[in-house]
């Protein structure tokens, strides 16, 4: 039970410092570590470099840390849903590094797997390729992208056992598994902590070795685009 912490503040205690790099799981608002983001805000830690596919919305997710200006730089693939982001970026207060989404995902995986760099076709011939090493393989041109690691990774899973084994749910998995491997420390928040042995060992998405601390959180799980269809004859 040594990995389980009382709450998000305690789970981050001693791990934070100004200027640090943090990976945050999630795609849009789906599968984001809501509770740990709130605790980051409350901690006041600043000058953060945040590696996250998106940047939340104005009043939820990573948008909260933009509002308090705790973020110095974002590494993301898409930041379209955030007015405060736009304001800070256009005024030069916020740095932004765009990565193609698949390149970002692979960079996190590589960092966690001890791979300092890899080659990809993605982005060849575009702005993304400028300044990057080009190399031919079998007559095609590829660019080199580097692995990413973070001082801290914060991830959201569905269930965990006390060893830190994690199970994600549906598309809330997204970037969480790779980011869990790429943090010098990784803190996970989950909806439910089950007993040891309750998770199917063939179906553990993140083995506990990658998780140093763990909390049960309360999750609002906000929906960004509620699209529905109507029942016929209803």
């Amino acid at each position, binding site marked *: 039970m040594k990995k389980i912490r009382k709450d998000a503040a305690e789970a981050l205690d001693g791990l934070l410092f100004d200027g640090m790099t943090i990976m945050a799981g999630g*795609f*849009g*608002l*789906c*599968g984001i570590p809501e509770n740990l983001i709130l605790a980051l805000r409350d901690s006041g830690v600043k000058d953060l470099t945040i590696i996250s*596919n998106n940047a939340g919305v104005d009043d939820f997710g990573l948008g909260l840390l933009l509002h308090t200006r705790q973020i110095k730089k974002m590494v*993301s*693939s*898409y*930041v*379209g*849903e955030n007015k405060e982001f*736009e304001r800070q*970026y*256009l005024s030069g207060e916020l740095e932004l590094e*765009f990565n*193609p*989404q*698949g*390149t*970002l*995902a*692979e960079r*996190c*995986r590589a960092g966690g797997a001890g791979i300092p760099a890899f080659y*990809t*076709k*993605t*982005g*060849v*011939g*575009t*702005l*993304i390729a400028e300044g990057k090493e080009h190399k031919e393989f079998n007559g095609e041109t590829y660019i080199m992208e580097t692995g990413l690691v973070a001082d801290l990774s914060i991830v959201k899973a*569905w269930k965990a056992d006390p060893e830190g084994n994690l199970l*994600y*749910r*549906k*598309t*809330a*998995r*997204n*970037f*969480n*598994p*790779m980011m869990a491997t790429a943090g010098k420390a990784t803190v996970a928040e989950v909806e439910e902590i089950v007993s040891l042995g309750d998770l199917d060992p063939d179906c553990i*998405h993140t083995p506990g070795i990658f998780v140093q601390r763990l909390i049960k959180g309360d999750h609002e*799980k*906000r*929906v*960004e*685009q*509620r*699209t*529905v*269809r*109507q*029942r016929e004859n209803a």
Partner: protein
Amino acid sequence: MAERAAKELEDGFYVNLGIGIPTLVANYIGEDIDVTLQSENGMLGMGPFPYEDEVDPDLINAGKQTITELRRTSYFSSADSFGMIRGGHIDLSVLGAMEVSEKGDLANWMIPGKMVKGMGGAMDLVAGVKRVVVVMDHASKSGAPKLLHECALPLTGKQVVDMVITNLGVFEIERGKGMKLIELAPEVTVDEVKSLTEADFEVAV
């Protein structure tokens, strides 16, 4: 245009549909063919929008819209999802565009001077998917061509487009070589197409 794009789908295809008009392609998939939709945020076998009481915040597509799963559905991480895309396992991608060049260059992610939202997964999709079909208006509202000799906007991918479907017609592109008009929309003439197109193209209608 979505209806025309749907004709590019073949039985057994694994397909990724971009945000916007490409999403509508799903509505025109023939009953006689079996197509599996991939969503790059980590899902294969995407179902339709949910009924109101089925909405699940953990189940969204790449456009962040709520969706449903099917009996064939599998979920996976973003790294595995883009491994699938980059590795050439997706048969077809349908995407929107701002500009396409006669050699198949595609621009659809940024306009210099405007706030850039990011490329999301578009660069990965055009680089990795076996066949890339673009669906877009033939020209801007002011009549400026969007099929060009060279894209003016920053590229999403170089020599990546295989087909362009516009409101005026359908073009095949041999990547790196050139463009061919293969279909005209009803009541559209080749001259009309030419007048709204900067790119050189062969006519084969």
